[in-house]
C-alpha cells in the first residue's frame, strides 16, 4: 500500500522568522584558500528583483563525497565540519550569496561521472512548490561537455545558462523565474 504525499504550499513572505541561524550561507570558513563565492540575483517575469526568496544549496565536498549515509563510497573522504547544505534569503535587491567550495565529481546515471555541480532549491511567495536548478562551474569545460544532464539539454542557451559566470572574484548565477531569460528548472 502506498500513501499519497502531503501537497506542497508556498513558503509565503514571512519565512524569515522560521529560518534559524544554525543553517546559514557559509558552507566553509571564509579563510579557506579554495573558498568560492557563489552569488546572483533572483528576478521575476517582469524583471523585478525577488526580495523574498529562500535559496538552498546541496552539494558534495571538494573530494566529491556527500555527507549522507547513502553515499557509501568510502574511498572518497568525508570532511569534518562540511555538511554540504546552505540556506539564505535574498536581500532587498533580490541578491543571494553563498560561500562554499567547488564540489568534486560524483557518479551519475550508469556510473558516468557528472561534472561538478550544486543542486539549488528556490522557494518564495508566489511559488507554490520549490523550483530546482543546478549550478555548474565555468572552469570545468571538458567535464561540462561530458556531463550527462547538460548533454541531454538540446537548447544550447539553456545549457549554457546552467554554468555560472566568473564575476567580481566569485561566480555569478542569476535566477530568472520567468521570461525570455528564464532559468532552466528541473522536475525532481
Amino acid at each position, binding site marked *: 500500500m502506498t500513501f499519497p504525499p502531503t501537497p506542497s504550499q508556498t513558503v509565503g513572505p514571512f519565512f524569515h522568522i522560521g529560518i534559524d541561524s544554525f543553517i546559514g550561507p557559509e558552507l566553509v570558513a571564509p579563510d579557506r584558500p579554495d573558498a568560492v563565492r557563489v552569488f546572483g540575483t533572483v528576478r521575476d517575469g517582469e524583471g523585478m528583483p525577488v526580495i523574498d526568496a529562500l535559496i538552498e544549496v546541496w552539494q558534495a565536498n571538494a573530494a566529491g563525497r556527500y555527507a549522507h549515509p547513502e553515499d557509501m563510497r568510502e574511498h572518497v573522504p568525508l570532511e569534518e565540519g562540511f555538511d554540504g*547544505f546552505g540556506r539564505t534569503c535574498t536581500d532587498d535587491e533580490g541578491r543571494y550569496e553563498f560561500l562554499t567550495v567547488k564540489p568534486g565529481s560524483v557518479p551519475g546515471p550508469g556510473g558516468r561521472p557528472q561534472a561538478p555541480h550544486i543542486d539549488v532549491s528556490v522557494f518564495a511567495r508566489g511559488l507554490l512548490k520549490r523550483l*530546482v536548478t543546478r549550478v555548474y562551474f565555468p572552469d570545468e569545460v571538458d567535464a561540462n561537455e561530458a556531463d550527462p544532464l547538460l548533454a541531454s539539454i538540446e537548447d544550447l542557451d539553456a545549457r549554457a545558462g546552467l554554468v555560472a559566470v566568473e564575476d567580481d572574484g566569485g561566480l555569478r548565477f542569476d535566477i530568472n523565474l520567468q521570461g525570455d531569460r*528564464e532559468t532552466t528548472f528541473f522536475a525532481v
Partner: protein
Amino acid sequence: MAQRVTRGVELVGYRRDDVEVDPPYLHPDYVATRTRSPKRPLLLLPHTLSEVTGPVYGHDRVGELDHDLTRQHDGEPLGERIILHGRVLDGDGRPVRNTLVEVWQANSAGRYLHAVDRHPAPLDPNFTGAGRCVTDDEGRYRFVTVKPGAYPWGNHPNAWRAAHVHVSLFGPAFATRLVTQMYFPGDPLFFQDPIFNSVRDPKDRERMISAFDLDQTVPEWALAYRFDVVLRGREATPMED
C-alpha cells in the same frame, strides 16, 4: 543502518507519479504566481546520487525547548494554547526518523513578527512564532504553540488567509524536501483562499488539514491537533542491510 540503494548499477530514485498532488506553478487566482511561475516546461532531472542524498540534521542541532513556542520569552503568549503533533511517514507508511521539522506562524491575532507584515493587529511580546524539532524513532514530532489567527492579505478584495502553520521538512533526500502548510478543521475561510485551493484534488487538500485530537489534549491546559505528513515514496522498497 544504511539502506541498499543500488539496483544493479542504478540508484533507486523517488516516485514521480505522485507529484500530481502538488499545486501547479501557475495558479492565476493566487496573483503572485502570475509573474513568478516558469513558462517553459521543467526538464526531467534523473535521480542521481545528488538527489537521493540530502542534508542530515539530527537531535544534536535542536535545543530542548525549541519545540515549545510558548516558552521562548519571559511571559506566555496570548491565545489558545495547542499541542500540534503527528508523524512523518514515507510513501510506504514507514516512519521517517531523525528528520528536522521546522514551523513558523502568525500569533493568535493573525500577525507575524516580521517587518513586512502591516496587518494592524497587535504583536505579542511573548511570541516569536518559530520552532523546530527532530522526529523520534516512530517518526513522531510535537510542538506546543498557540493557535494562529486568520489574517487579511492583498490578493483580492477582502481576501483572508485561512489560519495555518507553515511546516518545513527535509526527509532523507534532496528529492524529499517539502514545505507545506497545516490548516485547521472546519475553517470557514477555505472557500476563498487560493493558496489552499491551488491543490487541485479536494482529497489532496484534505490531507493539509489537521484533525482535532481529543486523546492528546491536556485537561485544564491545552487542546491538540494531529497532522501527519507523508513525504514522497521511493520507487522500490529498499532492502535493509
